[in-house]
């Protein structure tokens, strides 16, 4: 169980959080304009990266805020945490 630093509450045990999957998949603003393939891509297709992944977490048993985490999925090491709407760290 890792420790996540909630940008609002600080360091907390992972058990307080729930994962929200890959980050920065923006819900299309005009879904009706999309082809079935493009919509399926948004709905289901994931990079599912082994390595550094940008992902969403929710402090479900805390402040209930959503935020982003940069984590290496091969060893669970967390490199950065940033709020929704903030720019992802570039390195």
């Amino acid at each position: 169980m890792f420790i996540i630093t909630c940008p609002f509450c600080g360091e907390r045990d992972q058990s307080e959080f729930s994962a929200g999957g890959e980050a920065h998949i923006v819900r299309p603003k005009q879904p009706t304009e999309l082809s079935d393939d493009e919509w399926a891509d948004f709905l289901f297709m994931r990079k599912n990266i082994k390595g550094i992944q940008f992902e969403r977490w929710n402090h479900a048993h805390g402040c209930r805020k959503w935020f982003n985490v940069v984590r290496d999925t091969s060893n669970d090491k967390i490199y950065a945490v940033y709020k929704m709407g903030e720019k992802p760290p570039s390195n």
Partner: protein
Amino acid sequence: MKNNYSIFSLLKNSLSYHENWQQAWRDPEPKKEYEAVIVGGGGHGLATAFYLAKKHNMKNIAVVEKGWIGGGNTGRNTTIIRSNYLWDASAGLYDHALKLWENLSQEINYNVMFSQRGVMNLAHNLQDVRDLKRRTHANRLNGIDAVWLSTEEVKKFCPIINTSPDIRYPVLGGTLQRRAGTARHDAVAWGYARGADAMGVDIIQNCEVKGIKRINDAVEGLETTKGFIKTKKIGVVAAGHSSVIANMAGIRLPLESKPLQALVSEPVKPIIDTVVMSNAVHAYVSQSDKGELVIGAGTDAYVSYTQRGSHDVVEGTLKAILELYPIFSRMKMLRQWGGIVDICPDASPIISKTSIKGLYFNCGWGTGGFKATPGSGDLFAHTIANDEPHALNAAFNINRFVSGDLVDEHGAAAVAH
């Protein structure tokens, strides 16, 4: 010709202190080119190679495995085999596999210790009852031997279950598939490997795929840690690492890879002679032929390739075990481990062609792939050999995520995702 395995060969070899047994499979270096290459030397991949050679006469083929064969989820699962799935497509797929299991030891001359000790699924609330009855009716009409059991019948079939009405989520009944059971997981990989090798298939271990070469929209070969291997057909059966290979080919799959945990107790004399699963209270348990209680836990809810899950999941599972089997409180956990399972949004697998010619994927088995091993291998071999799916795996194409024609088996999958 390989040694045939039998009591007679054992007796004969005992005279020479077992020093004359042949290799079960060779340890070849990769050739420059193959007719087809299977990526992933787990049970599914080895079975695919076996049936490609046996049924489709494709013998100039190879299986490349990053580590050692059977070392992924084949060697990490809780070995449950059953076919009591809800939808016709799934029932067809899993029962095809179950029928192959029933003759597998003889087919590959390797005792996979298939034990038809029955699998029981318990209901703990009224919606569970409706869902399980629905599944039982569907199973019966599909020719699958599932029956509904009352609480009393559950107790009779497995007396150590706590069926008291006073527990938090009392057992309200269950379904039983008697043809279902367990098998020895390692033996499946080893038996298929031996069988495939005997027909000329090259099984190449410690060979990691580093890239997929394509020209336009067709595959040309594989970059591996043992050099470039040319081939026109690549069948990927890489379980938790499917997306890693897909990313190499530049395609995305509807998968998330998550740690699934399991544990065994210390070995004890026979105490439970069937497999019992419960979705609502979330625990499933059987006893291995060594005497260990084999207990499946759930997946963590986040993507991870660490093969280790969080302790919470194990704690939650054992909590459920003690709710249903209070007598196990003084039993001890001997070993816990994790596997990386690739989960599809509809809890059904993908056995399919892709948009790239000659690239085939067999993935998304989630928490329940072991039971399908022979069927999955057989149908994937068919798909690769004919460049067309078999009728039994047609529904499990990748395109279903575009059309919306999903095969939603969340209810029948062992682990609620």
